[in-house]
């Protein structure tokens, strides 16, 4: 085969594209890794879980977050822009009424907060919210 400039270009572009495709899973964020660890790669449903977070948080040191998922056995919270994605895991006992909880969390910068609920039937539900942070909460 004669290597013209055109074939060279096509070949190299294809090569780069292939490399990028192959490397993608390695770029998966730590949050995705943690979620996969929790769910075992199970499919994530949506709708049965509500995550309430402010759209804009002036101070990333205390961001009020509320999660609620009727029928959940546990809810895990993740923040994908924090140095450590895990935030908290709520496990509900037999005397828990509505499967909801609110707390205050730290966010290092503008990012997504993700809540994963494990339902009593073993399935998983996901909700996420983007929070804009004006002052980060990691005390750099």
């Amino acid at each position: 085969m004669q290597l013209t400039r055109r074939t060279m270009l096509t070949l190299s572009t294809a090569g780069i594209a292939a490399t990028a495709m192959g490397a993608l899973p390695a770029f998966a964020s730590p949050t995705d890794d943690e979620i996969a660890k929790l769910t075992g790669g199970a499919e994530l449903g949506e709708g049965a879980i509500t995550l309430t977070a402010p759209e804009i948080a002036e101070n990333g040191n205390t961001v009020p977050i509320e999660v609620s998922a009727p029928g959940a056995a546990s809810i895990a919270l993740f923040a994908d822009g924090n140095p450590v994605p895990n935030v908290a895991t709520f496990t509900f006992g037999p005397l828990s009424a509505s499967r909801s909880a609110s707390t205050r969390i730290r966010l290092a910068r503008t990012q997504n907060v993700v809540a994963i609920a494990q339902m009593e039937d073993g399935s998983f539900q996901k909700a996420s919210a983007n929070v804009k942070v004006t002052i980060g909460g990691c005390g750099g």
Partner: protein
Amino acid sequence: MASDVKPRVKVPKTASAGDTITIKTLISHKMESGQRKDSDGNPIPRSIINRFTADFNGQNVIDVKLEPAISTNPYFQFEAIVPESGEFTFTWYDDDGSVYDMKKKIEVS
């Protein structure tokens, strides 16, 4: 650290049987994340509350695993069902091994 830790809990004093009540808890704790550095650039070691539980008459209501991303003075609000009169026990577990607890009675009619 253990000296200035003060738990505070808000539980209604009375309720009807089977009612859903809202509980608010707060504990004063600096929740040192382990990410910060002091003025000399040395990392400040992590010191947080890593677990919080609430039980009613020995039955669990909520069990929370805390990470450094929980704010200073960890605050939780949640709901519980009260089938009969009894006592709530709230327990916080510190990284340094300390355990703080608080009990609250509730009259159920």
